[in-house]
């Protein structure tokens, strides 16, 4: 009697568990809806569509992760760190066996905009599908045409991730997506003009600027994906660099830049305020310089509409002449190592050598960018096929941690700069992480 009652109770309890498990299994492996589900397979594409797709690939900076220097374009291989182990960007050439040659337009759409590979396998959100979801149907179609017909197939097997079982199971990402990844394409704001909307589309969608410039939460989610959230593009630390605010913060953001200067920076890599460096060099070399002028103007218009935060940014910077004290720690190092290019007055030689007076890296509380560029120098900026004449040299072998901390503390505390002193330990730590010969080199997180 008792046994039968127990069995009946257990049965009643098991049923909802089974139903819940079934629903969960369906949810985490389901293929999201796509407007292209019924699209017929296409054998050839119009050249105009392919070249439009190539432009969308530039806007989206696909090569940042999916191409390695000296290797076949889009064959994958870039290593990226996650808290659980390294993952590698995949082969997205139209090779039938190792690439995406067998993808239908619907498969391609699900991967790019929703992070779901054929069969329901979830991609890691290192692929910026929470941004790419904003891409228009037309741009996805063009992008597909480019990858199917504009890219050479390359037979190169994908590298499996280092993440151990059971952490390498992909289905929990579907739950992450449910919480953090939007599902809708960009919808134009009727109260804004076409230029602003085009800028918002590029910045939030293909440009995925927030991948670097928006701070991330505990689950590695971007804290905001559009202008409705104050953390959107408010500046973030990653890969040993501080990606500054792109909002109207006069010190750590674009508050002192006008629209023409934003366009010039993205088109030529330099303006009166700054020269691209760190991860932005790659974004410039591979992506922003190829954007059309009207698209750059749209980006500038949109970014200039994002308000700053005086609480976070502090009192707006103003130039102050340096007090004449050549014996201050760091002042002598500055005079002998830095002043030839950046000037004893800190004003640089714009637009070629950037000023350090008023530079974001000297005003931001985070000192990572200042330390990193001093240790490792800048990468080659290639504008319109021409490499730059002037580049920041690496001082890793010439200056000690103490000397770097002193000279950067001097730079960050002179000419009105108030980023604050640099800790010698922070220099040592970044020196270790960025040493290619070390056992714990810094590995790229996000692009």
């Amino acid at each position, binding site marked *: 009697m008792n046994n039968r009652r127990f069995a009946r109770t257990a049965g009643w309890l098991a049923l909802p568990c089974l139903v819940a498990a079934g629903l969960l299994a369906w949810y985490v492996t389901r293929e999201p809806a796509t407007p292209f589900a019924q699209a017929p397979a296409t054998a050839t594409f119009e050249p105009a569509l392919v070249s439009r797709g190539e432009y969308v690939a530039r806007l989206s900076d696909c090569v940042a992760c999916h191409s390695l220097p000296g290797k076949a374009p889009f064959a994958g291989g870039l290593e990226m760190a996650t808290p659980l182990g390294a993952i590698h960007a995949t082969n997205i050439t139209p090779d039938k066996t190792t690439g995406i040659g067998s993808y239908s337009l619907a498969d391609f759409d699900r991967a790019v905009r929703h992070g779901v590979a054929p069969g329901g396998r979830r991609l890691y959100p290192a692929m910026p599908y929470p941004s790419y979801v904003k891409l228009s149907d037309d741009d996805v179609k063009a992008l597909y045409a480019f990858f199917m017909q504009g890219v050479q197939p390359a037979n190169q097997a994908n590298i499996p991730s280092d993440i151990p079982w059971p952490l390498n199971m992909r289905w929990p990402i579907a739950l992450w997506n449910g919480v953090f990844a939007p599902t809708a394409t960009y919808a134009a704001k009727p109260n804004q003009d076409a230029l602003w909307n085009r800028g918002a589309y590029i910045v939030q969608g293909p440009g995925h600027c927030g991948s670097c410039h928006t701070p991330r939460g505990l689950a590695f989610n971007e804290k905001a994906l559009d202008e409705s959230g104050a953390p959107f593009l408010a500046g973030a630390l990653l890969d040993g660099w501080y990606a500054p605010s792109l909002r109207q913060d006069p010190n750590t953001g674009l508050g002192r830049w006008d629209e023409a200067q934003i366009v010039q920076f993205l088109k030529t890599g330099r303006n009166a305020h700054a020269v691209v460096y760190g991860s932005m060099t790659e974004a410039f070399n591979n992506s922003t310089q190829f954007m059309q002028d009207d698209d750059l103007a749209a980006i500038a218009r949109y970014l200039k509409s994002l308000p700053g935060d005086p609480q976070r940014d502090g009192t707006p910077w103003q130039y102050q002449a340096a007090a004449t004290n050549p014996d201050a720690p760091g002042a*002598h190092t500055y005079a002998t*190592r830095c002043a*030839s*290019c950046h000037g004893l007055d800190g004003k640089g*030689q714009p637009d*070629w050598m950037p000023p350090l007076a008023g530079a974001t890296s000297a005003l931001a509380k985070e000192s990572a960018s200042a330390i990193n560029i001093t240790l490792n120098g800048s990468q080659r900026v290639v504008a319109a096929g021409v490499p730059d*004449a*002037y*580049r920041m*040299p690496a001082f890793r072998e010439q200056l000690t941690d103490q000397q770097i901390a002193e000279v950067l503390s001097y730079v960050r505390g002179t000419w009105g700069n108030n980023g604050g002193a640099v800790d010698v330990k922070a220099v040592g730590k970044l020196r270790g992480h960025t040493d290619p010969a070390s056992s714990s080199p810094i590995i790229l997180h996000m692009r």
Partner: protein
Amino acid sequence: MELRINQKAYQVDADADTPLLWVIRDDLGLTGTKYGCGLAQCGACSVLVDGNVVRSCVTPVAGVVGREITTIEAIEEDEVGKRVVATWVEQQVAQCGYCQSGQVMAATALLKHTRAPSKAQIDAAMVNLCRCGTYNAIHAAVDALAKQEGA
């Protein structure tokens, strides 16, 4: 654009970001100024701009239009520069000589700003690299020039 070099005007056809060093050496043939590292680290390319020592390899030419440039070729037309060269010869400072035009420019700039520099000031200002290691001779020569002034 027009450049004023060694009291003469030169018409130069160059991109705005061309390093001044390239214009001086390649376009104008003033080869006394040397190319060393190209990164403002060694000082072999030092010239004077309005009396201040600058490293011409990292000086975009557009930035020096309208300013007075002095190279090693004309340094003896300068009162201080003449004494520096004389002392350099007297003390036989140079070995291979490659860095020495830059060293002479740096010493001239120092003495034009500070007539009788202390040893510490000499150490702080004379930071150009010398592959032969003539640092002791350089410092002795500048020290002798400082003492002439001090006397």
